[in-house]
């Protein structure tokens, strides 16, 4: 403590303070002298500086994005008034009394998150079942009519099994799966080279947009094409080229349009 500030050994914290511009006076000079003499520490400090620069390069663009409307304060926040608070408390009591069901039904996730999570479940189902040799499906493709009938009943909406033979993918079969809020179905197809793609679908009930464009997402091992159409959410998953998957998606889309 009583050491001369110009000769006191350099502490690790001071190296950080240097690049964070929290160092002044004599210690600044002392640390710079130290770095001039110590190549290893100089390299570390240079790397840390580069990290800061990289963080700014990565995330500063967000500062210029402009504030989305959802972040504006509601004009008349109900919770800010006592009357409003009382009303809210009463509402909670009422809801609590009915088992809180109404609250649980509220979907607070964003549209984007919903799409991502749906795609994620489809990708997981693909990853789990497509490598399966002995039990890839519950109902084999040879019982296609039964498969469609069964899944229509379980999904609560009429579904058909798209025939992708024309583009080289034969039906392996299908299965019933649990999705976030109810059942989902998975059809599995395979081409002559043994490559498998799966088509994942579930009934869409919410008030969300009924028809969306294709959205392509890529995970480490599989690509997923997601869209919504005809009261169903669709996800086509496969470890094939994006262009191939997109072509296949268009075929499925066309076939399911005709089927209705």
């Amino acid at each position, binding site marked *: 403590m009583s050491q001369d500030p110009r000769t006191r050994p350099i502490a*690790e*914290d001071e190296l*950080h*303070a240097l690049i*964070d511009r*929290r160092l002044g006076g004599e210690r600044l000079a002392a640390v710079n002298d130290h770095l001039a003499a110590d190549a290893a520490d100089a390299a*570390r400090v240079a*790397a*840390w500086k580069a*990290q*800061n620069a*990289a*963080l*700014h*390069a*990565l*995330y*500063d663009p*967000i*500062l*210029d*994005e402009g*504030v*989305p409307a*959802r*972040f*504006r*304060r*509601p004009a008349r*926040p109900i*919770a*800010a008034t006592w009357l409003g608070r009382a009303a809210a408390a009463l509402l909670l009591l009422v809801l609590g009394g009915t088992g809180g069901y109404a609250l649980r039904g509220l979907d607070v996730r*964003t549209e*984007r*998150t919903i799409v*991502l*999570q749906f*795609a*994620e479940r489809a*990708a*997981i189902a693909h*990853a789990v079942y497509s490598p399966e040799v002995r039990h890839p499906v519950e109902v084999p493709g040879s019982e296609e009519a039964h498969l469609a009938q069964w899944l229509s009943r379980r999904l609560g909406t009429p579904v058909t099994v798209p025939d992708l033979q024309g583009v080289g993918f034969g039906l392996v079969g299908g299965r019933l799966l649990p999705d976030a809020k109810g059942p989902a179905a998975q059809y599995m197809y395979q081409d002559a080279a043994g490559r498998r793609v799966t088509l994942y679908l579930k009934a869409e009930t919410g008030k969300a947009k009924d028809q969306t464009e294709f*959205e*392509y*997402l*890529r*995970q*480490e091992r599989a690509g997923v094409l997601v869209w919504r159409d005809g009261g169903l959410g669709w996800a086509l998953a496969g470890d094939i080229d994006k262009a191939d998957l997109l072509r296949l998606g268009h075929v499925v889309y066309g076939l399911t349009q005709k089927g209705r």
Partner: protein
Amino acid sequence: MFGASDKAIEEAIPRLRRYARALCRDAAEADDLVQDTLERAWSRMHLFRREGNMRAWLFTILHNLNANRVRAIKTRPALTTLADWEASGAIRPTQEEGVQLRGVAKALEHLPEEQKTVLLLVGLEDMTYDQVAKILDVPLGTVMSRLSRARERLRRLTSGAEAPAETAREGERP
């Protein structure tokens, strides 16, 4: 009465979003975190001391909400996470610089949450070590040791000297 505070909150939004994006990576998840932060701030405005630092207060709220979020994620099965996703149309830098940036972004995900938080508050938000200690409610020494660990870890990860395997909690100096 809330006019000045409202303005201070609004001015902080871009920085909250930047920080949240660096924490979550998934843009929608990050904005949800910011939205939760704002809603909490609006509803608790009466708890904010008028002479206080609004930005520090908001970052404290965001930090606490994020801690809950991270806990929730940890209890989820870890088969795959949203963070693995790369949306279509995402920036795919091909130039050398872009590759390096991606390396840093990727390496950041492999830092333990408490190290990442300190690194971002200091390196990106340019907060003082004292401010960071207050926001995280930890001693100054802990801030310094986390910062040091974070920077060294990131350096090893981006130089390829270390494989991004475990992100377990490391011991901390008191």
